[in-house]
């Protein structure tokens, strides 16, 4: 029985799989976050303009700013979650590579295994 597992190649493949998964997840989170930050700033500016022009009262402007601030908390929680999911996907991508490599090596080993009973 011969168990062939190229540790260096498997490690390199695992790193590559996890890195690409992590980069993909990071890009998605960053894209979403930057869009929401820009929108938030725009919304606060708009509320300020409306308050200055007297379109809405100061109390209502404050309530709107509070609402926007709270919604940004939900956005930040989402970004944190997207980060966790990216890490989870990266770990699983690496484990998938390891599983495939071990299964392949084990398959070869078992093929050549001779039982003497």
């Amino acid at each position: 029985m011969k168990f062939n597992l190229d540790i260096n190649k498997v490690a390199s493949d695992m790193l590559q799989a996890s890195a690409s998964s992590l980069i993909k997840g990071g890009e998605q989170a960053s894209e979403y976050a930057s869009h929401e930050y820009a929108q938030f700033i725009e919304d606060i500016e708009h509320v300020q303009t409306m308050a200055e022009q007297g379109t809405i009262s100061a109390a209502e402007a404050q309530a709107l700013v509070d609402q926007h601030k709270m919604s940004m908390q939900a956005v930040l929680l989402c970004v944190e979650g997207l980060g966790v999911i990216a890490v989870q996907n990266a770990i699983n991508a690496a484990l998938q590579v390891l599983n495939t490599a071990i299964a392949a090596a084990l398959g070869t080993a078992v093929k050549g295994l001779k039982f003497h009973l």
Partner: protein
Amino acid sequence: MVSKLAFAANKRELNRMYRPREFAATLLAVGFLLWMGAFGCGPVTLIAPYDQKIDDDVTNLQKSTAEFFTKIERQGGSTREDYKNYTKFYDDAKVTLSGLSVRANAFTNNKLTTAQLEVLSEQFRLLEETHMKIGVSREAVPEYEKAFNRTFTAILTLEIAKKGP
């Protein structure tokens, strides 16, 4: 004499059967199979799985909130005296969010979604308080709607991302 011969034959048979290298190889193979079964198959989970019920209920709550804002905008705003006509909306939102929070809490590794739902509850509480005290002007409606939609989108974005790659 016969028993001695029988013993010798059995010994030869045993020696033929017991081959240390093959035995070790078999053990190794079985060990690997067990290891694969125990650790190699299941994916790692750091966050709760996707929940269709949360997705559906948050989407429905977004729709009823949009209807609420559209109604207020169409009638030219809502004064604090008019608040009593909207208590059913606030009560329904509270009940829905309570159910969602209980469900989200039931899943392990779901603290982020639970925290998002708490933020949304706080937004509804603040909106109701503002409505009671000063009312909701027509001009402010689009801004309220943007803030609520940002939270709804954040909750749904996280929930859908849980579906995986």
